[in-house]
C-alpha cells in the first residue's frame, strides 16, 4: 500500500510547511469560490428552465392567433363509438412526436385502434420554436379536406428531417411532393395550402391544448387524465385495457376483430 510513502510528505514540520499551509489556505478559498460559482450557475439555469413553461406558457405560435379561434376540431382515426378515446396533441416538427408517429403508432393502430379498443384524435399543437410546423399543420389540414389526413400525417412525420426548420426555410415543395405521393388532387391542395384555409382550425386546436394545460409534445389525454411525453405501445395498451375493464366493456369482445 502506498500509505508508507505518503506519510512524510505532509507531516514534516519545517518552515517550508507554513508556506505550504498558507498556499493551501488560498487554494481552498479559490476552490470553494469556484465550486460556489458553478453551483450558482447550475441551480440558476435549472431553476430557470423548470419555471419557464409555467411563466411563459410554452407554445403559442405567433402566426396562429388563438383569440377568436372557434371550436377545436381534431382528426379522428378508428371507430367513432370506440369505448376509449385517446386524444393526442402533437407538433409535426417535434422529434419525439415524429418518433412516436413512425415507431409506436403503427402498433397502436393495428392492435388497439383497428380492433376497436379505442380511437385516436389528433390535435395540432404547433410549438413556437419549430418554424415549419405550422406549414406542416396546414399541409395536413388541406389533405384532410380530401379525406387523406392520415396518409399525409404519416408521410410528413416520416420525412420530418428533410423539411424541418433545421433543413430548410421553404418547406412547401416537400409538402407538395407528399401531396402527390399520397394521391391528393395537388392543384386543389395547393390552393388550400396557399390560402392557409385551415389556419383557424389549427389555432383552435392549439388553444384547446393550452386550455387543457398541455405544455409539451406529444401529450396524450386518455379518459380524464393527461399523459405528457412519448408513451410506449405497452403503456397505452395497459391504460386502454384498464379503462375498458373499469367501464365493463368487454375487452375480449373487442379483441375479436371489429365488425365493419
Amino acid at each position, binding site marked *: 500500500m502506498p500509505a508508507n510513502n505518503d*506519510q512524510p510528505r505532509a507531516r514534516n514540520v519545517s518552515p517550508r510547511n507554513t508556506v505550504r499551509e498558507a498556499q493551501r489556505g488560498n487554494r481552498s478559498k479559490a476552490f470553494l469560490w469556484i465550486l460556489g460559482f458553478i453551483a450558482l450557475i447550475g441551480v440558476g439555469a435549472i431553476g430557470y428552465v423548470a419555471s419557464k413553461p409555467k411563466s411563459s406558457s410554452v407554445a403559442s405560435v405567433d402566426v396562429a392567433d388563438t383569440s377568436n379561434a372557434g371550436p377545436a376540431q381534431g382528426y379522428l382515426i378508428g371507430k367513432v363509438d370506440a369505448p376509449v378515446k385517446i386524444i393526442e396533441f402533437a407538433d409535426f416538427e417535434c422529434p419525439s412526436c415524429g418518433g412516436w408517429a413512425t415507431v409506436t403508432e403503427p402498433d397502436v393502430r393495428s392492435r388497439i385502434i383497428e380492433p376497436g379498443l379505442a380511437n385516436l384524435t389528433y390535435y395540432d399543437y404547433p410549438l413556437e420554436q419549430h418554424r415549419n410546423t405550422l406549414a406542416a399543420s396546414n399541409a395536413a389540414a388541406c389533405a384532410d379536406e380530401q379525406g387523406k389526413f392520415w396518409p399525409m400525417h404519416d408521410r410528413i412525420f416520416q420525412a420530418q428531417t428533410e423539411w424541418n426548420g433545421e433543413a430548410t426555410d421553404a418547406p412547401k415543395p416537400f409538402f407538395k411532393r407528399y401531396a402527390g405521393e399520397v394521391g391528393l388532387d395537388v392543384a386543389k391542395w395547393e390552393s388550400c395550402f396557399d390560402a392557409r384555409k385551415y389556419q383557424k382550425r389549427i389555432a383552435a386546436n392549439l388553444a384547446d391544448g393550452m386550455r387543457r394545460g398541455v405544455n409539451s409534445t406529444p401529450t396524450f389525454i386518455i379518459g380524464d387524465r393527461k399523459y405528457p411525453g412519448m408513451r410506449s405501445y405497452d403503456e397505452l395498451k395497459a391504460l386502454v385495457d384498464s379503462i375498458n375493464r373499469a367501464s365493463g366493456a368487454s375487452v375480449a369482445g373487442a379483441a375479436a376483430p371489429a365488425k365493419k
Partner: protein
Amino acid sequence: MTKRMIVAALALAGIFVSLYLTLYKLGIIGELSCSVGSCETVNTSTWSRFLGLPVAAWGLLFYLDVFAISLIGTFPRFEDERVISLVLVAEAAVGVLFSAWLTYLELGVIHAICIWCVTSAVIVTLILLVSVADLRDFRAENTAAT
C-alpha cells in the same frame, strides 16, 4: 488549484448537466430547450434507459460519486492518498467508456445528437485526463524521492 480540485469542479458541472437531463426524463421539466441537435429524440429513445434507470440518472450518480471522492481527496488528511487518485482514474475510465458507447448510439443508431449528452461526454473525458495527470504526479514524486 490542485488537480483533484479541478476534478471536483468538473464533476460538479457534470452533476448539473445530468440533473437537468434526469429531470427532463422524469417529466419534471416539461420542455427541453434544444436549440442544437435533438435532445428529445435521444432522451426519449429506447437507449435512454440502462438497467431500469434513465441513463441520465446513472450519469448523476456517477458525477455525485466522483465529486464526493475528489472532494475528500482535497482534504489535507487525504491529499497524499494515492488510492484516491487510482479510484478516480478507474471511475473516469468507466465513465469515458460508457459515454463513448452512448455517443456511438447517438451518431450511429439514433442518428441524433443531444448537445447536453455531448457536454457530459466532454466533461467525463476531461475528468479522466486530469485524474491521470494527478496519478502521474504521485509516480513522479515517488521516483524523485528514491
